[in-house]
C-alpha cells in the first residue's frame, strides 16, 4: 500500500530526526543534516532502505536530521510511512 496522505514523525530535538512524507509518483528524498557532508549518502541509503521495506515506491520524503543514530532515523521513517499509509 502506497502513501495516501501527508504525514510526519519525530522532532527537531537533538539526537532525533523529523520526517515528512507525502504521496508522489516517484521517490524523492531531501535531507538536511548537521552531518550532511560526512554521512549524507549513508543517511539517504538508510531512508531508502526503510521505504523499500515499507513497500513505498512513490513519495516525497523530507528528513531533518539532528544528529540521530541510524536506529532513530529508521524508527522515524517507519513511523511516517505507517502514518502516511493511514495504518497508525
Amino acid at each position, binding site marked *: 500500500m502506497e502513501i495516501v496522505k501527508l504525514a510526519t*514523525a*519525530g522532532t527537531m*530535538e*537533538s*539526537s*532525533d530526526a523529523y520526517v515528512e512524507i507525502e504521496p508522489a509518483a516517484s521517490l524523492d528524498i531531501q535531507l538536511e543534516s548537521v552531518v550532511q557532508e560526512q554521512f549524507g549518502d549513508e543517511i539517504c541509503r538508510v531512508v531508502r532502505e526503510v521505504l523499500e521495506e515499507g513497500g513505498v515506491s512513490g513519495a516525497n520524503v523530507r528528513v531533518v536530521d539532528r544528529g*540521530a*543514530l*541510524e*536506529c*532513530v532515523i*529508521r*524508527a*522515524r521513517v*517507519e*513511523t511516517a510511512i*505507517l*502514518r502516511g499509509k493511514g495504518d*497508525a
Partner: protein
Amino acid sequence: MRRSMLFLPGNNPNMLINGNCLGSDAIIFDLEDAVSPAEKDAARILVRNTMRYMDFRGCEIIVRINSIDTAYWQKDIDEIMPYKPGLVLLPKTGSAADALEADRYMTEVEQKLGLPQNTVGLMPLIETAMGVENAFAIASSTKRVKALFLGAEDLTADLQCKRTKEGREIEYARTRLVVAARAAGVDVYDTPFTDVNDDEGIVTDAQLAKALGFTGKASISPRHVEVINAVFSPTQKEVDYAYEVMDAIELAKSQGKGAIALHGKMIDAPIVTRAQQTIAMAQALGMERGV
C-alpha cells in the same frame, strides 16, 4: 541485581540511547505515562529499534507497556518481545486476572517467536487500592511474575489522598507489598521519589524503602541513581560480618556443633540466609572482604 531502575520516556531518543550511561542497574523504557496518545506508535517503534540496534550490556532493559484496558498493550508486546527485555512492567495491575491476561498473551507471542515460555518476566505495577488488596494473589498468579512494583502517584490519587514526601499515606501499601512479594518468593521495588531537586529527601526515602525490605527503588531522575545504588548496596562492615557468619558456620560444622555464637549472638538460619545474600551482592558488585 536491580538496586536502581531509571524511567526513560519512550519517545525521547536522546535519553533512550544514553540510558546505559546513567549508572542504574536497570532502565525502564516507558511507553505509558511518558508518551502522549498521539505518539504511542512512534514510541513503540523507537523503543523497539533501540532494543534491536543498541547494546545495553550491563544494564537490564525493562519496558513499561500500556495497561490492558487500552488498545495499545498487545501491540507493545508484539514489538518488544523479539528483543527479549528482562521484564515487562504492567501498569494498573489490579488483580491476578490482569496478570494472567498479560501472561497468556506473552506466552502466545513467545510461542510464535519460538522462544521458551517465560523468557520475558512480568512485573505488575501496583498503583490502585484494588491492586494493593490483591497483591499476594497477583504476585503468585503465574511463574512469569518476578517482582511487584509500587506506583505511589496513581495509588494516592485512587486513595483520594495527597502524595507527600514523608509518605505516611503509602506506609500500608509499602509494607503490604513487601509482605505479599516475599510470601510469593518474588522481588519488590519501591516507587520513585519525585522531587528531583531534594537531595536529602531521596536519601531518607531510599533508606526507608531498604529498611522496609524492598529489593530496590525506581527513579525518574538520573540524579537519584547514585544515592539509590549506595543505599541498596551492602556496606563494607556488612560484607565483613557476612563472611564472619559463614566462617563461624563452617567452624561449627567442622566441630560437629549444631549452634554457634558470634560476638555474643546466636547464629541461626535467617542470619545465615542474610549473610549469603549479602555476600552474593558484594560479589556482584566486586566488593572484597576487608582485613
